[in-house]
């Protein structure tokens, strides 16, 4: 595996762009996620309305992989239902664990760029930080 499969254009763009890195005006949930081994830290904000993620953003600091993965995720979950977001999180972690079929990954769109992180076990936690934080955030919100 070449390192270029991980540090791809998509990852670079998201790591260097701050378009999802800000606070929301009216978040309904705020969830903190940390990766103690690296010190990666994010705070995910969601604005939920009628079971739909109306808006999402995050703030935080950490490595390019953790920050880009969170940013890609925010793009992906905006406008999706909580159920759909949960499914996406499952698909993403399944992809990282190498348990998914290629054709089932399409729903992940740009997040597929992180597929090869499964070959870098030490960095898996960075890639899934945003998604785990999302799962925590919407788990608590189930009525």
């Amino acid at each position, binding site marked *: 595996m070449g*390192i270029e499969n991980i*540090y791809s254009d998509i990852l670079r763009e998201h*790591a*260097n762009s701050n378009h999802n890195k800000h606070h929301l005006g009216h978040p309904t949930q705020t969830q903190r996620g940390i990766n103690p081994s*690296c*010190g990666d830290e994010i705070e995910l904000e969601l604005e939920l309305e009628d079971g739909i993620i109306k808006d999402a953003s995050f703030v935080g600091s950490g*490595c*390019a*992989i953790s920050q880009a993965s969170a940013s890609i995720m925010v793009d992906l979950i905006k406008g999706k239902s909580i159920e759909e977001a949960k499914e996406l999180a499952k698909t993403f972690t399944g992809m990282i664990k190498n348990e998914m079929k290629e054709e089932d990954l399409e729903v992940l769109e740009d997040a597929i760029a992180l597929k090869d992180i499964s070959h870098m076990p030490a*960095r898996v936690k960075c890639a899934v930080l945003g998604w785990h934080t999302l799962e925590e955030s919407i788990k608590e919100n189930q009525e």
Partner: protein
Amino acid sequence: MSNPYRKDFPLLNQKERSKPLIYLDNAATTQKPDAVLNAMEEYYKEYNANPYRGLYDISEKATEKYEEARRITAEFIHAKDSAEIIFTRNATESLNLIAYSFGRSFLKEGEEILIPISEHHSNLLPWQQLAREKKAVLNYLYLDESGNLSEEELEAKITEKTRIVAFAYVSNVLGTIYPVKEIVEKAHSVGAVTVVDCAQSIPHYPLDVEALGVDFAVFSGHKMLGPMGIGVLYGKKALLESMPPFLTGGEMIDFVSEQEATFAPLPQKFEAGTPNVGGAIGLMEAIAYIKDTGYDKIKAAEEELTAYALDRLRELSYVTIYGEKYLKENRSGVISFNVEGVHPHDVSSLLDADGVCIRAGHHCAQPLMHYMGVAATCRASFYFYNTKEDIDSFIESLKKVRRWLGIGN
């Protein structure tokens, strides 16, 4: 440039590799010479047996070799008596032994433990937990920007209440070499006991416990060419004798009845269970290798590498070096640094693509990271088998890091 030592290290000479191996994480663990590997193999293949117990030839030989390793270790650090050498798993276990056995027996409420802010968690958490349990106070020695400890700071923090002063001989993050003798003398002037973590010093600099006057000294075998799983606790005999056992079980008793027991004399009192004979034999060979090479040669080789690496790193405007930025008497071959705009974990992963192994993270020193105001750093650390070519490869790879992430030119 040929390095006369590399041929002794099979891991550094692997022919069939998909990428080169530039090993610059020697503060984490060192590679092992053939002499160490062969001695351990010989033990396991020719006289592996449980020591002390067996009344037969190979058990006696295992016992003899294990005790020879203890004698060699004692001589190596100038301990007066080999009973002052306790074999443990590693420096961490040695430090825990001191905190549990000495600390819980003798530390009183309100007394103070003093450690530098730069300590590895292994020389911080045993004291932090001990202080909490005994309602004692854990105080910190703070360092200047270059990682140095001032006399004033030492003067201010060592008080009549100080009971334990514990510190690393060399910082595993900043590479600073601390003035052991001065700290020990100051601690002794108020009657405090000294604990010196030599894990990062003994691979590079000689240790003379007698001349330094330290009460306890600890180190790990694997950071000094030996195997993992063997460590050393040195303690002054009178202190060790006054302490209760840490772990109890086989090999450490005199007599056991249903309700009570008497314990074996030193050193067995502190070595419950079947010991790591193979590890001790590996450590003995590692000591022999270091002695044959000579600390003077090791130091000279490392100083050349460290000075060169610091020079090359200073050329890169986007690299911040922590600790001393130039080679000095009190600067060892551990260099922490950061690349502007790039997280240390990304630096490390990108260097790995070129076969360059460095460490990235908090280096088990979170309070120091917090004190320095950084989340993490990259760390390169050298040993005498490294070469200038290793450092050139490291620097060339480092130059590409920002490009990978689309930062700078």
